[in-house]
């Protein structure tokens, strides 16, 4: 595993794999800014085995693995070799794509010592329907650094780090700065929040949370409704949901969201399984 120093390193590697001209399969989606941030924080590594480039994102408790390969057979050979070297690390892989195509990649990982952890599904909604919920609650958008730290702690306490790609404190502060973090505070404690991104016509719901102590007070629907209001200019709202979370899916269907044929099969080389928590 070698550290990646420049974004350009990655491009050169991908050029080489693609240049073999035998095809291209990957779960690596280039988001230049995010990757540059990871490189600067020394969290990004690479390893080339045969006709596959592996990239590693060090998340401290585990490592996210990305692959860029010229074919399924080549990925198989490379994974078998990677296995000997990465045995001591806890690897997590998001296999993203359409069903049933991603099944065969998931199968390959399972042949090479990985286990299915959980499956996420992307849901989206095209039109906006505003559903006014009367709110006596004080929704805030001006999270200070104490609030941000509280939210960071809640995310790490209640969300599954393997399934949900948790942000670091800086990212939370950035959302607060850009008014994309709404929260409810009661007696100095955060009782709920929603975090989102607006990019042109698309709005991404990132995290939506109500503290278990404050459930059934409509905080959740008020937060979501305010998120919808702030997404009014967009044509589409999307987010990822854990496929086995029937209750959440029912709620989203109720709000007019629909399941897309875009899935994320999460596999890890530890035989652990996603456990439904109370978030």
């Amino acid at each position: 595993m070698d550290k990646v120093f420049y974004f350009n390193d990655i491009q050169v590697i991908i050029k080489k794999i693609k240049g073999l001209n035998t095809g291209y399969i990957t779960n690596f989606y280039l988001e230049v800014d995010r990757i540059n941030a990871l490189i600067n924080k020394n969290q990004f590594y690479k390893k080339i085995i045969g006709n596959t480039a592996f990239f590693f994102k060090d998340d401290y408790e585990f490592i996210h693995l990305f692959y860029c390969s010229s074919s399924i057979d080549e990925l198989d050979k490379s994974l078998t070799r990677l296995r000997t070297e990465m045995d001591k690390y806890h690897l997590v892989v998001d296999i993203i794509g359409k069903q049933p195509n991603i099944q065969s990649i998931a199968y390959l990982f399972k042949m090479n010592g990985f286990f299915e952890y959980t499956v996420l599904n992307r849901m989206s909604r095209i039109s906006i329907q505003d559903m006014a919920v009367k709110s006596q609650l004080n929704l805030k958008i001006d999270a200070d650094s104490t609030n941000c730290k509280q939210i960071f702690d809640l995310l790490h306490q209640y969300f599954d780090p393997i399934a949900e790609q948790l942000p670091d404190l800086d990212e939370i502060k950035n959302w607060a700065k850009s008014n994309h973090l709404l929260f409810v505070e009661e007696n100095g404690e955060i009782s709920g929040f929603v975090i989102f991104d607006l990019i042109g016509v698309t709005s991404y719901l990132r995290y939506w949370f109500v503290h278990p102590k404050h459930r059934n007070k409509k905080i959740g629907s008020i937060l979501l409704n305010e998120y919808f209001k702030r997404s009014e200019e967009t044509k589409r709202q999307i987010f990822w949901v854990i496929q086995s979370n029937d209750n959440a899916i029912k709620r989203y269907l109720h709000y007019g969201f629909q399941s897309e044929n875009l899935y994320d099969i999460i596999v890890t080389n530890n035989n652990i399984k996603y456990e439904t928590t109370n978030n």
Partner: protein
Amino acid sequence: MEAFIKKLEGILEVDKIEMDDVLLDFEEWDSLTSLSIIATIDADFHFSITAEELLSAGTVGNLIKLIQVKSKK
């Protein structure tokens, strides 16, 4: 063991394997290769090794040593 080595040569698609050949250096090595070697050991020597044990053996010679040690137990 002779018979086992013959089978290995078949699985690895080579005419002759040497004791210091590195398993992962065989061109055609993939997950099916390791699975079939594990199954062969299971069928011929009546014990199972894990994929990790197989891969950490490294060379053909070490794999054979591993089998010999295990079959004595």
